[in-house]
């Protein structure tokens, strides 16, 4: 049984960060690009949630929207970002600013471009203390050295006066992390924190982040495209595709038994390196869709090896899966969960208990029409419905598919697994 560390515990606590139905749009000459389209997740204190996706899946935009860093002409069109119970999207810009740094902090992908080249690193860290905590120059400097030591920069006291370009890539990222931690944030968002770094340094930075999370009890939202990073650090993972979360659940469960064909494809396209025999990598055919022209139905259907007709017009709803420990915990709380998922594909589908289908009557194309579209964007409500309702829906949909294809094809629909693509 895969261990799902702390998952049951953390999910019982109220989430510190709770994102619902987030929609971010960018008007372009090609039309409106929906970079993020109904993303929702919860992050508890002390927990690491990874948002996994290819470039262009909307994972970084999600992070920026949470931080309130979406620049014109981009716009957060809908949803809510509740931090410690307060909806930041409804808060004044001054209130939002106050939350940044001390409530929510962020580490960026390229530490060289994320540090100001004209000031010494000590100055940049000390400034956090001087501005937000009103410390004196000397005291702030002392705290800066402490922080540099805490992120394990050797010779911190000597190096505090040096400039960003005098540090190596890994050390720079440590400096960036030190700055982000200066005000003891409740949640740290790390946007591809290791992507720009040497492979050898990546593990050190991840370890550092993990240790700091454990020390401080902050929630860590890790944005990454790297499955290895996810496997190593995340308690839970949310897989994004074309601006949506298509699958989410405890890391071990998702990685060992992916429910969405996209997740499965991702896993198959990464070298495992464990099996002795030679294994061919199987890349996902095609390329991610342009966000200005997201395919109707399930956005993954043009690339999906298991595609059935229904996928072209309708998006499978995100549904709770599985009765594994950890997965179930989400179900058991009253907190809306997108999460619980993951059932071993070979096993008995736990949700679909429908009788053999009478002629495929009865599924309604849920992805068509404005009403259902908005319902699609509201998985929280779905998830909050009594389990019976959801199962009922799953049954109906499962029934509809019987006609279509073999076992695997209908997986998205039958077991109510996975993603919501919208119409």
């Amino acid at each position, binding site marked *: 049984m895969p261990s799902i560390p702390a998952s049951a515990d953390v999910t019982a606590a109220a989430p510190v960060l709770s994102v619902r139905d987030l929609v971010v749009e960018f008007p372009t000459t090609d039309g409106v690009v929906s970079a993020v389209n109904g993303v929702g997740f919860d992050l508890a204190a002390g927990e690491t949630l990874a948002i996994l996706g290819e470039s262009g899946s909307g994972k970084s935009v999600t992070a920026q929207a949470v931080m309130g860093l979406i*620049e014109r002409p981009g716009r957060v069109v809908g949803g809510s970002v509740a931090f410690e119970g307060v909806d930041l999207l409804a808060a004044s810009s001054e209130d939002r600013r106050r*939350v940044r740094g001390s409530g929510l902090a962020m580490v*960026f992908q390229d530490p060289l471009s*994320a540090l*100001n*080249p004209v000031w010494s690193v000590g100055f940049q860290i000390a400034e956090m203390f001087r501005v937000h905590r009103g410390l004196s120059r000397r005291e702030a400097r002392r705290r800066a050295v402490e922080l540099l030591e805490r992120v394990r920069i050797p010779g911190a006291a000597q190096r505090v006066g040096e400039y*960003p370009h005098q540090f190596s890539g890994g050390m720079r990222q440590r400096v*960036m992390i030190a700055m982000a931690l200066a005000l003891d944030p409740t949640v740290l968002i790390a946007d591809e924190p290791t992507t720009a770094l040497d492979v050898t340094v990546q593990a050190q930075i991840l370890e550092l982040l993990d240790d700091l999370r454990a020390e401080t009890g902050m929630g860590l939202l890790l944005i990454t495209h790297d499955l290895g990073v996810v496997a190593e650090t995340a308690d839970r993972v949310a897989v994004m595709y074309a601006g949506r979360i298509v699958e989410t659940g405890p890391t071990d469960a998702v990685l060992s038994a992916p429910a969405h064909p996209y997740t499965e494809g991702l896993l198959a396209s990464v070298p495992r390196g464990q099996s002795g025999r030679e294994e061919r990598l199987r890349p996902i055919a095609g390329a991610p869709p342009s966000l200005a022209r997201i395919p109707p139905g399930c956005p993954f259907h043009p690339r999906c090896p298991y595609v059935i007709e229904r996928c072209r017009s309708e998006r499978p709803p995100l549904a709770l899966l599985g009765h594994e420990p950890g997965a179930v915990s989400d179900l058991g709380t009253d907190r809306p969960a997108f999460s619980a998922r993951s059932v071993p594909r070979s096993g008995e589908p736990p949700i679909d208990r429908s009788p053999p289908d009478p002629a495929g009557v009865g599924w309604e194309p849920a992805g068509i029409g404005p009403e259902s579209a908005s319902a699609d964007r509201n998985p929280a409500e779905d998830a909050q419905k009594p389990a019976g309702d959801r199962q009922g829906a799953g049954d109906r949909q499962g029934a509809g598919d019987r006609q279509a294809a073999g076992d695997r094809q209908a997986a998205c629909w039958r077991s109510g697994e996975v993603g919501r693509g919208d119409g």
Partner: protein
Amino acid sequence: MSMSAPPPDAARLDAARLDAGAPAREAGLWSDAWRQLRRNPLFLVPAVVIALFTVMAVFPGLFTRTDPRACDLSRSLLRPRAGHWFGYDLQGCDYYAKVIHGARVSMTIGIATVAGTALVAVVLGTLAGFYGGIVDTLIARVTDVWFALPTFLGAVVVLAVLGGNGLPQLTLVLVLFGWPTMTRLMRSAVLTVRDLEYVTAARALGAGDLRLMARHVLPNALAPVIVYGAIRVGIVIAAEATLSFLGLGLQLPAISWGLMIAGAQPRLLSAPHLLLFPGLFLSVTVLAFVLLGDALRDAFDPRLR
């Protein structure tokens, strides 16, 4: 002493740079520029010349004991000779003393005008570039319209309206017609810097707009304005001389290179030294500032490294 090993400091710097594979620009902008400048004769020579003229402007007594206003008509238009290397002007004043004292007007007006212009340009350009949107549209359009006004014609009109033709009025006029170019420059520099990741990063860690502008945008956007400012000092000094030459600037008995050149004009053939010396000083000053600007530009521009 082995010559082969580079100093460890430099080696570490280079290693850090190679390591990151980063363009040199990211390396401390100001310190890098300074490192390069202090070895560059194209910077050092104009810098020394400018320092010399600055001392001349502040303490003309260090260069000449002669009073430029103690004139003797019997010496009118005497050619240069031993002890009086620059000769005498129409009024019989010592021309060397006059040229030395003329530096004060040129340097004052050059530096005051550029300081004033830079103040306007930095404030407007930063606001326009940083906030964008309606603020930017407003400032940029006004700048464009202002830019279309003809400098010298405008200067004539404004000076005529102001009445007086002293240094303050000249400075005001030159600022009035000089700010649009620099504002545009500042705005475009701010536009580039504003979207850099460290500005976003600072915002993500709770910095407010003022702090973002002062700490992160300005120090990284100032280089082009400094370069242009240095060149602009030269241009302004020449403009003052031009206005004075045309009779629109300072009036006699003020001492300025422009006025001296104007006075030399009718006697170009009989007394060429009257044109030569103030003209030479003026050209050298202007050249020094322009060269300084060039050297600064080279130091700040990574593509020329």
